């Protein structure tokens, strides 16, 4: 049962092969048995899950079911869940029981999806390895000494280990795509504004975007359908109809123009990873696509630009954690300043503190123009590169990450090296474009992800191209031996 996809479980529920309660109990038991090896969940929610599963079975019996009613998933612990702890991977929110649901959570619930629990993540989504979590690192199911990537590392590991068929994630600089690549699953970061950010704990508001993580493009299409759409409560939500993502999955891709950016195949890319990506591109050619060389000349600016803009926005967003209204409060503060400083100093981990300090510095008097304004100007250059390239091709293809999963501890003490593991994903957030990672092969037994980048709101095309690739390859069907 654990090898079934979201689409497969939905079909089996419709056919009456098993009930939602049965599949829910089965996966809860599997999580209990296997997750101690991975640490992919922060909170498992059996009571909520079984109540939702029973309600879903009743909806199905009453003929009131949607396509995904009764199908179990997990939510990244960044999405607020009413009455359930929402920690964001931080000591700051270890005691935080959210008093409302994020829009994504409410929509999934309305679709009848069953929540099995909340997945582990880098603290406040700041990390590329899931090592900054207050709840300890997550292990990669393909190699338990390796990181799963981050920040949505728990969601990626849980899906790869077949503990859940799909999970939600969020992506500020690659946090859906990079862990999807490192764990051998399929993940989609939608266009900025496509999925509501309401109730999604903010890191960098002009970059954050929620999206689906699953084992196939088809499952990503199904889950995105439930997540996407306009939300009055998110001031940057885009009011634009949501297409039927599943309708175009099988469209022919003959004549499709695939842009290959030379900058994504240069220094810094592990040649073995590059070879896997080249083979995937050949596969697309066999499916009738043509390749077009394109250039993204400002690629090298993306990571430095991001490490001004994201920390600046984070320093502002995280100022709300003050020990007064909710979250962690230090013991016996002797005055208000001490309450603020010690609650924040003790509640946040070292990577979060680093980023808050970088952002505070970049926004401080005398430095604003040199750092923040300069980065916003560079951001336009980066977006213009993509806009220009996407006039010459229908989508851009390259590696998701420069290497396969590295080992736990390998980069932890060197922030700049860690930041460079997001070199191919970060520019896509700065440009606001949709991006996707899908499994394309292995190097030394560790998965390699292929990245697709599309035009604004062109998620349906990315899903179509990924689905066609998956119809002609079996990389996405590979399962780590211990979890087969």
């Amino acid at each position: 049962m654990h090898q079934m996809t979201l689409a497969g479980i939905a079909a089996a529920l419709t056919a009456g092969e098993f009930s939602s309660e049965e599949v829910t109990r089965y996966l809860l038991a599997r999580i209990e048995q296997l997750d101690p090896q991975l640490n992919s969940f922060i909170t498992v929610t059996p009571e909520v899950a079984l109540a939702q599963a029973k309600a879903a079975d009743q909806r199905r019996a009453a003929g009131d079911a949607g396509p995904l009613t009764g199908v179990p998933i997990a939510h990244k612990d960044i999405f607020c869940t009413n009455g359930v702890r929402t920690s964001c991977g931080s000591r700051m929110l270890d005691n935080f029981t959210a008093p409302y649901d994020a829009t994504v959570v409410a929509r999934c619930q309305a679709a009848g999806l069953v929540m099995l629990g909340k997945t582990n993540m880098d603290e406040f989504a700041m990390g590329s390895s899931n090592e900054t979590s207050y709840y300890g690192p997550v292990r990669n199911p393909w190699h338990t000494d390796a990181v799963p990537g981050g920040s949505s590392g728990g969601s990626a590991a849980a899906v790869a280990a077949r503990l859940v068929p799909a999970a939600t994630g969020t992506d500020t600089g690659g946090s859906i795509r990079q862990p999807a690549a490192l764990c051998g699953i399929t993940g989609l970061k939608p266009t900025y504004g496509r999925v509501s950010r309401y109730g999604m704990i903010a890191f960098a508001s002009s970059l954050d975007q929620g999206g689906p993580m699953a084992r196939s493009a088809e499952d990503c299409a199904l889950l995105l359908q439930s997540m996407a759409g306009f939300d009055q409560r998110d001031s940057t939500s885009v009011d634009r109809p949501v297409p039927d993502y599943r309708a175009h999955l099988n469209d022919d891709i003959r004549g499709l123009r695939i842009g290959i950016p030379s900058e994504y195949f240069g220094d810094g890319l592990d040649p073995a990873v590059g070879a896997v990506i080249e083979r995937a591109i050949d596969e697309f050619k066999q499916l009738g696509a043509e390749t077009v060389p394109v250039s993204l000349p400002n690629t090298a600016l993306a990571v430095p630009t991001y490490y001004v803009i994201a920390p600046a926005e984070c320093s502002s967003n995280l100022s709300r954690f003050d020990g007064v209204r909710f979250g962690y409060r230090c013991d016996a503060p002797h005055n208000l300043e001490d309450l603020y400083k010690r609650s924040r100093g003790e509640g946040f981990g070292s990577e979060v503190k680093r980023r808050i300090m970088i952002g505070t510095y970049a926004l401080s008097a005398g430095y604003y123009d040199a750092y923040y304004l300069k980065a916003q100007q560079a951001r336009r250059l980066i977006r213009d590169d993509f806009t220009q390239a996407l006039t010459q091709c229908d989508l851009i293809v390259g590696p998701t990450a420069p290497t396969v999963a590295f080992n736990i501890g390998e980069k932890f003490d060197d922030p700049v090296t860690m930041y460079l593991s997001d070199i191919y994903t970060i520019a896509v957030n700065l440009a606001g474009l949709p991006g996707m990672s899908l499994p394309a092969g292995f190097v030394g037994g560790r998965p390699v992800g292929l990245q697709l980048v599309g035009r604004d709101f062109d998620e349906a095309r990315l899903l179509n191209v990924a689905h066609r690739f998956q119809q002609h390859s079996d990389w996405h069907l590979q399962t780590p031996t211990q979890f087969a």
Partner: protein
Amino acid sequence: MALQRSDVEGIAHLARLAIDEADIPRYADNLSAILDFVEQLRAVDTRQIAPLAHPLEMSQRLRIDEVSEPDQRDHFQQIAPAVESGLYLVPRVIE
């Protein structure tokens, strides 16, 4: 850009973050390395480039200024560290 101990202390104060004395040298090293890394941006000529604040360059959606959310103070204060009579308690500010 090599940050000194006093720079780190100043930034931590602005950010209202207590940091351990023993950790200051490590923060100074890490933050200096990050700032050195972003220094690359200085080499780019951006004189004619307008800053980009929103990736899709959309303007803020406006709405009528009217009450749209119900009062949920009691509900929200259930998770507060310290409240009394509907007020959040903090250490005495005025002696």
